[in-house]
């Protein structure tokens, strides 16, 4: 009998055979690892993959999950912490340096690069994620303090191929220009819907003592409650319209005048 089916296509196998022969057997026996990809990246940047374009394209199109990082064990890093938390639909267990923020852990270790590092000092909101139902800044959260918590990032808002209503509203109203702040804006706005439903107050709430229940958000309320998310392109009128549309479910016209 022939061997079990190879993890590689014939083109991929040829690429490894020609360019990384010493790794071929390892890949065949235990599958592709992160370090193989790192080496491929190096070859690609040196222009050495041109003769194997088909195999390279197939390799880079692979969606490979690296849940474990097998070459690091707890004693391998100083002040290493094993932490496990739920991210979107699945539980992640990672070994991290105690200094790692939730943002760096999501981006650099779990591969969820939707949350953005804007200022890294809690001033811009680009890193906003939803932890246990509340919007927080992942750049000012130590990942080590997240044991057992449940985190939703921009990648977890859509259900299969159906976008979250807030994502749809941002698209419809062009709630962005460059898009860098958008994941934070949308996560923030999604959590804002819950806060408004619960009747949470803001600094512009007319009468704090009057606790009338759910809040229908005015332009002024949205501006105040979203002030932790900065948009350098200035898409604010579009963002406000998108949030109003997502809350009311009605078509909303943009208001260009409230900046006065």
């Amino acid at each position, binding site marked *: 009998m022939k061997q079990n089916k190879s993890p590689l296509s014939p083109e991929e196998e040829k690429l490894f055979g020609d360019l990384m022969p010493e790794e071929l057997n390892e890949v065949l026996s235990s599958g592709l690892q992160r370090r193989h990809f790192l080496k491929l990246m190096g070859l690609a940047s040196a222009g050495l993959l041109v003769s194997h374009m088909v195999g390279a394209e197939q390799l880079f199109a692979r969606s490979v999950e690296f849940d474990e990082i097998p070459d690091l064990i707890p004693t391998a890093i*100083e*002040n290493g*912490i094993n932490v496990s938390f739920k991210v979107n639909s699945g539980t992640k267990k990672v070994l991290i*340096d*105690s*200094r790692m*923020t939730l943002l760096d852990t999501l981006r650099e270790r779990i591969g969820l690069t939707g949350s953005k590092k804007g200022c*890294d*000092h*809690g001033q811009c*909101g680009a890193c*906003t994620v939803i932890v246990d139902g*509340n*919007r*927080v*800044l992942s750049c*000012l*959260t*130590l990942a*080590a*303090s997240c*044991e057992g918590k449940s985190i939703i990032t921009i990648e977890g808002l859509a259900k299969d191929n159906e976008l979250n209503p807030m994502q749809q509203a941002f698209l419809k109203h062009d709630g962005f220009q460059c898009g860098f702040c958008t994941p934070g804006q949308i996560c*923030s706005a999604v*959590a*804002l819907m819950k*806060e408004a439903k*619960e*009747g*949470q*107050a*803001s*600094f512009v*709430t007319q009468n*704090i*003592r009057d*606790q009338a229940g759910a809040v229908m958000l005015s332009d002024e309320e949205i*501006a*105040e*409650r*979203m*002030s*932790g*998310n900065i948009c350098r392109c200035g898409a604010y009128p579009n963002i406000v319209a998108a949030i109003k549309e997502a809350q009311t479910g009605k078509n909303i016209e943009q208001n260009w005048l409230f900046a006065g």
Partner: protein
Amino acid sequence: MIPFKFSIAKNQSEALGLIHQHQHAAFLAGGTNILDLMKEHVAQPTEIIDLGRLPLSTIKSTNTGISLGALAKNTETANHPLIRKDYPVLSKAILAGASAQIRNMASNGGNLMQRTRCSYFYDINMPCNKRVPGSGCAAMKGFNRMHAIFGWSDQCVAVYPSDMAIALSALNANVKVMQQNGSERSIPFTDFHVLPKDHPEKDNSLNHGELITSIELPKNNFASHSSYIKVRDRNSYAFALVSVAAGFELEGNTIKTAHIAMGGVAHKPWRALKAEAFLKDKAATFANFIKAADLEMSSAKPLSHNKFKIEMGKQTLIHAFEVALKG
């Protein structure tokens, strides 16, 4: 950030034990300020003790008023039905500070422990007596537009940044603290934060290794006549140039007692004792408001770039009085 050992305290005595063992240890609650300071190398703890598991996040009625758990979040505190109803000045002050995300993270105890946002304190290339005692004060002759006009010393002109604390000062709160030996002590809010004098490195009267467990709010009779007014460079998400928390206990149109504190003007929440004394048993009139504000601001000592805070402080006081009177 320098490397640090991270541990999670299971209970109060473990937290106190851990902090006692390490001179360069720090407690972690919401982390919104200390993490930022660690990234800038302004704070360099070698041991971080996470308080997240301690049962200190309850907000409850007591015989004397309300007890705010030290680990209750700012958002939860500002929105608690009893706080919105009986302590609206506190809700308003909390909601005037930071952003929704930061208020969701920040704890009540941590809010009191946040450090000045003086840009010279944050820049480790600059002399700063608060960061490195004896190194000098770069703000004194630098850009000091945001700095103090009351109570500063030749060692430090920084201001205390919290909005929440300004309301707590006007409300005569008490800070409950657990000491190393497990016994508790209570610190009147006006004594909690201190003026810089010769030791600006000290922000407050806590000793190393003490743990804030709760903030106690006494009952008050001015919920319907209180206000929090904040003046800042942006409409939202900016520190105060000047802020005022005010509450009047009224009998008819007479002010029985006035409770007034100012933010953005001193190294601690500035209790406006002169204005309070003037307004006591006086008619709540615009003319009296102006006199009280003038009197309070008469002892202000501006720096080279913040003379404007005197007039701004006066107008903010008057406005806060008017809003409090209207209710």
